[in-house]
């Protein structure tokens, strides 16, 4: 286990060193990603000024949702970028997986260590800024449980998005043409989770409750922490399902990934 951690650290170290070699490009990239997040939120803020609220959520409340999702997605995108379906399928075509399979260490660990996009820091930082803005403007009744639960929600979101990336990467073993379809889930899912779920049509909400349990990862924990009533009438424990949902998605993804690897070994590319 220690060996694996150390190996991971070394592999990530390689990625960091390579990226910092191009300092200017790195800084520009970081700034660009960051400004995209801020621009998007500013647009939202302007719209909210006009309409006052989105589905009963005021601007600082939406900032809470939005900032949380951005921070979590950014962190995931940094940690799991080896599994980014677009990049992964390209690497597989270049024979990366064959190279990794020739080394006497775990393949998953190597894929995880094959990419680490440091410049995602920009997205995380801006997400954090939006989140902090929300916290500052909101009269949240903090309890110890809420304080403990907040980082758990964050970690669950990272697991959830990571799981989606892994599932997307695995699908590219069979087809690279459907990457766009997979991206709808990851990128579209992030986008969707940044807003209160109550604004979406019924069928969509049901899909993201029972099929892909996204609703438990951001919306319900936010209801609980912000002390808002549940307009959808789910059981009272619904806000606490975030770790269950996040972890199950990651687990399903890991199993699918193992299955995909076996498939790859029997068909090649």
């Amino acid at each position, binding site marked *: 286990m220690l060996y694996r951690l150390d*190996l991971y650290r*070394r*592999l990530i170290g*390689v990625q960091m*060193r*390579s990226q910092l*070699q191009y300092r200017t490009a790195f800084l520009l990239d970081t700034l660009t990603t960051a400004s995209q997040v801020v621009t998007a939120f500013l647009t939202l803020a302007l719209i909210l000024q006009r309409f006052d609220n989105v589905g009963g959520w005021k601007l600082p409340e939406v900032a809470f949702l939005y900032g949380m999702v951005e921070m979590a997605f950014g962190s995931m995108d940094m940690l799991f970028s080896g599994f980014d379906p677009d990049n992964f399928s390209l690497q597989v075509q*270049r*024979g990366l997986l*064959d*190279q990794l*399979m*020739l*080394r*006497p*260490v*775990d393949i998953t660990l190597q894929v995880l260590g094959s990419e680490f996009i440091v410049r995602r820091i920009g997205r995380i930082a801006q997400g954090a800024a939006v989140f902090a803005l929300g916290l500052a403007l909101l009269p949240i009744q903090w309890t110890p449980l809420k304080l403990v639960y907040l980082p758990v929600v964050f970690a669950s979101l990272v697991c959830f998005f990571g799981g989606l990336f892994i599932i997307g990467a695995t699908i590219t073993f*069979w*087809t690279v*043409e*459907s990457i766009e*379809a997979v991206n709808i889930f990851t990128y579209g899912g992030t986008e969707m989770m940044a807003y209160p779920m109550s604004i979406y049509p019924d069928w969509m909400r049901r899909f993201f409750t029972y099929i892909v349990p996204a609703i438990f990862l951001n919306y319900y924990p936010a209801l609980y922490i912000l002390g808002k009533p549940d307009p959808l009438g789910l059981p009272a424990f619904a806000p606490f399902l975030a770790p269950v949902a996040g972890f199950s998605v990651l687990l399903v993804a890991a199993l699918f990934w193992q299955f995909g690897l076996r498939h790859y*070994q*029997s*068909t*090649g590319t």
Partner: protein
Amino acid sequence: MTPIIRVTNLRKYFRVSLRAKGLVGTVRGLFTGDYRLVRAVDGISFEVQPGELVGYLGPNGAGKSTTLKMLTGLLVPTSGELHVNGRVPWRERKAYVAHIGAVFGNRSTLWWDLPVVDSLELLQYIYRVPPAAFRRNLDEFRELLELDAFLDTPVRSLSLGQRMRADLCAALLHNPDLVFLDEPTIGLDVVAKERIRQFILHVNREHGTTVLLTTHDLSDVEKLCERVMIIDHGQLLYDGTLSGLRERFGGKRELVVDFAEDYADVSVDGVEVAGREGPRVVYRFGREDMSASQLISALSERFRIEDLSVREPDIEDTVRRIYEERLLE
């Protein structure tokens, strides 16, 4: 001796789906039976003894890469048995690859942005090479491969020849029992090719490393391999010595004679006159027709000879003929 590679009736068939366009096509392809079966490797058997240096030849698409991928554990065979270095490669991947080395000529195993030496050190960690052994091997290889000039250069800035040398070094740092080299000299100039051949020979002789290499360059085979295997259409066509191959399929040899005079009739029974330019005549004859000495004595009885030389058929021609005329089927 126990063979280091034992392959028995190995097969690898691929299903190539006939309508794999788009998500719908792929999903449908999972359920319907519309596919074409490609027999990439179709029942080959061979053994390799420890310390051998074997050339594995075949035209593009013959099944070379598929065989190599099965031998290195990247692909699971459709049927047949495969034991390499005491293991079943695909079943015990990690334990197996720890004791083999592999270089796939067209791609590098090194980290693109990292100086060569950092890549090598990372591999030392991955293969858990003891520091002393690592030092010893690195010192030896950097001299033989002349790595010093670019040890601190990032891999992305290396020339093809330098990259190949660095990759060879990387593949052998952990003292593998057996190394697979896929086109190790592809795209290199004559000097670079020669250096790499010398290195392969050295590792094979001094370290006793078993080597299996594929190549398109037959001078690689001529200079390195005692034994060649030829595969085409997924089947092993020939497995034996290089000289045996030449003897069996060598085609005709040529005798070039410079006569003292311009004789009118220089024909010899059973021998073709392939060319004539004044007193210089080229005879072409098969091994089954007569030996070179028989032909020479027959000629010297009738004519005065100034000079002569025998040309052996090109191995390149030989192999091309085997592929084209399907001599071995």
